[in-house]
């Protein structure tokens, strides 16, 4: 490969990390909030797909991408509230509920989104961060999703709030010791409900990034396990919102390898390279998990570690 091709390839991977990483960031922040309160939400995969559809539909009908973003966030919060409500029933397991909501969320999204496969919706504006470079490949790669800065601010805000605010401490208290929260007179169910719904709201922004920025259209293959990878990503980030940022960039980059190679004319093994994020997730889990011991930073009440 020539130097130009290398630059194109690198730019495509960095650009991919920014584009593909944005939904990862939102979903992992959402999952992080939910897990901090002591509950695991595997249904975020369903949340992601449903909110992607809702964002696209909202933007298409209202002709404004920002209304779409709002619709996506609300749809995410609604489905996550259902998860919270089901989990608060006695004898209902949160992992099984997550699987059910994965099915229901995807089903609802495909059912309601059938008429949205053809049309085009107005897209979120791109922030052009690549003006300093003369290379068109670099300029194209640094067209950044307008929601991405919001995600970065959110990560910082969450990190600060978990350490310094009453609400953040309450969420952590419910996650680390439900009994202690109850003893102080707080409703653990209520806190978890709020954290799960809030997590769905944040994950919904990830769905909006999918259909309103990149890939920028609605189809039934819009998400293939990003929501679940995010669950593993939170483990990798050891439940820290700031580390979620780095993890999301890493996974976005890994997901961009296949398309980036294709953009410089290497078509071989396209499907194999697309499995890199899954393989990477597994590898990271193998390295970070240890049998019989609890990962550092893990909320004490989490049923599935």
């Amino acid at each position, binding site marked *: 490969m020539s130097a130009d091709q290398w630059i194109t390839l690198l730019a495509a991977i960095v650009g991919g990390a920014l584009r593909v990483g944005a939904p990862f960031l939102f979903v992992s922040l959402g999952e992080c909030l939910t897990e901090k309160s002591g509950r695991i939400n595997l249904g975020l995969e369903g949340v992601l797909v449903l909110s992607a559809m809702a964002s696209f539909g909202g933007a298409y009908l209202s002709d404004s991408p920002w209304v779409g973003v709002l619709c996506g966030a609300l749809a995410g919060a609604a489905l996550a509230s259902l998860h919270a409500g089901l989990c608060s029933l006695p004898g209902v397991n949160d992992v099984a509920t997550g699987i059910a909501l994965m099915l229901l969320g995807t089903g609802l999204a*495909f*059912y309601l989104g059938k008429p949205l496969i053809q049309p085009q919706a107005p897209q979120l504006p791109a922030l052009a961060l690549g003006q300093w470079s003369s290379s068109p490949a670099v300029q194209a790669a640094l067209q950044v999703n307008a929601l991405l800065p919001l995600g970065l601010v959110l990560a910082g805000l969450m990190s600060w709030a978990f350490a310094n605010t009453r609400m953040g401490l309450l969420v952590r208290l419910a996650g680390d010791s439900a009994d202690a929260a109850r003893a102080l007179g707080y409703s653990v169910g209520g806190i978890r409900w709020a954290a799960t719904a809030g997590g769905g709201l944040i994950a919904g922004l990830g769905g909006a990034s999918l259909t309103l920025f990149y890939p920028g259209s609605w189809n039934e293959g819009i998400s293939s396990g990003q929501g679940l990878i995010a669950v593993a990503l939170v483990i990798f980030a050891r439940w820290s919102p700031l580390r979620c940022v780095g993890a999301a960039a890493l996974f976005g980059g890994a997901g961009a390898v296949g398309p980036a190679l294709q953009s410089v004319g290497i078509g071989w093994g396209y499907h*194999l390279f697309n499995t890199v994020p899954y393989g990477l997730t*597994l590898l990271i889990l193998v390295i970070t*998990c240890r049998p019989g*011991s609890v990962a550092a930073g893990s909320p004490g009440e989490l049923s599935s570690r």
Partner: protein
Amino acid sequence: MRNALREIALPIGALAAALLVFGALVWLAGVDPFDMAWLLFKGAFGDAFSWQNTLQRAAPLMLTALCVALPAQAGLVVIGGEGALVLGGLACAAAATQLPLPANLAGSVLACVAGALAGALWVMLAGALRQVRGINETISSLLLAYVAIGLFKHLVEGPLRDPASLNKPSTLSLPEGLRIGGIAGSDVHWGLVLGVLACLLLGGWLRLTASGFALRVVGGNLRTAQLMGLPATRLVLLACALGGACAGLAGAVEVAAVHTNANASLIAAYGYAGILVSFIARHQPLAIVPVAILFGGFGAAGSLLQRRLGLPDASVLVLQGLTFVFILASEALRQGDPAARWRRLWPARAALKESSP
């Protein structure tokens, strides 16, 4: 008696509630819910043709549900059956077209064994990762399923592709002698017999043998199992291997009886629907048979709903998701004594009743 009644009544009630909500949903789309219910029944169990269609779909569902049920009996939530199914189908097609198998029953059996083996190894990998490294098997099995699908697409569109398949990349077709035919000239293939047999045999194994009992002890209470000196890791791996073999067999049979080669149509979400079937059957192999037939029926009716009423093809997915949610919610009603809960809900009224002579 009361317990037995509850075991039957709760899932039926949950199913009825799901149908009710689904009816409301299609009513909003401008479709008469009674038309929908009638077509759902007709498309699933209305005549001989729909029964054939239903049973044809029930066969892989039984096998993929076992891929959830057996690990669940050992205390694991494995949801990556789709990966085992896909690789099973691929291994069957590869063995049948690349190896010199005899073109008779023995050859078919060998091709299916190749599929079962591939599935067993794949799910065992998730089990081993949990036992050795403590990785959550729910997440790892699903990630492995996505890896399996990528591998499948790579091989079907690359090294194993039949050059003559232009629009739809496929492997070479299975030789006539290796295909699995219908039972007594119908469209229902022998996979149904394999599915029912697997459910019966594995159900019997869990109930009647010492190793099956040991497996359930491991699933019920790991601490007790360790105190009893049971080989927990070996039993968990065995459960994963048997479950994976079932899902792999499902893929192999789909290839040998329905598609005649491995192509993308094999990725039809039977693995995910199997999760639902197993949860509704409460991970009991014997209960899987009727539940799989019911959901095979829903699948069969799906295309009728699409054709006659213009509902999207995802309708069946919505119905499945709703059923799953209501089944889980019904778990709450299983807890404790219903009469006590009634008293808790209506304390004043219950007190009134008890105080009156």
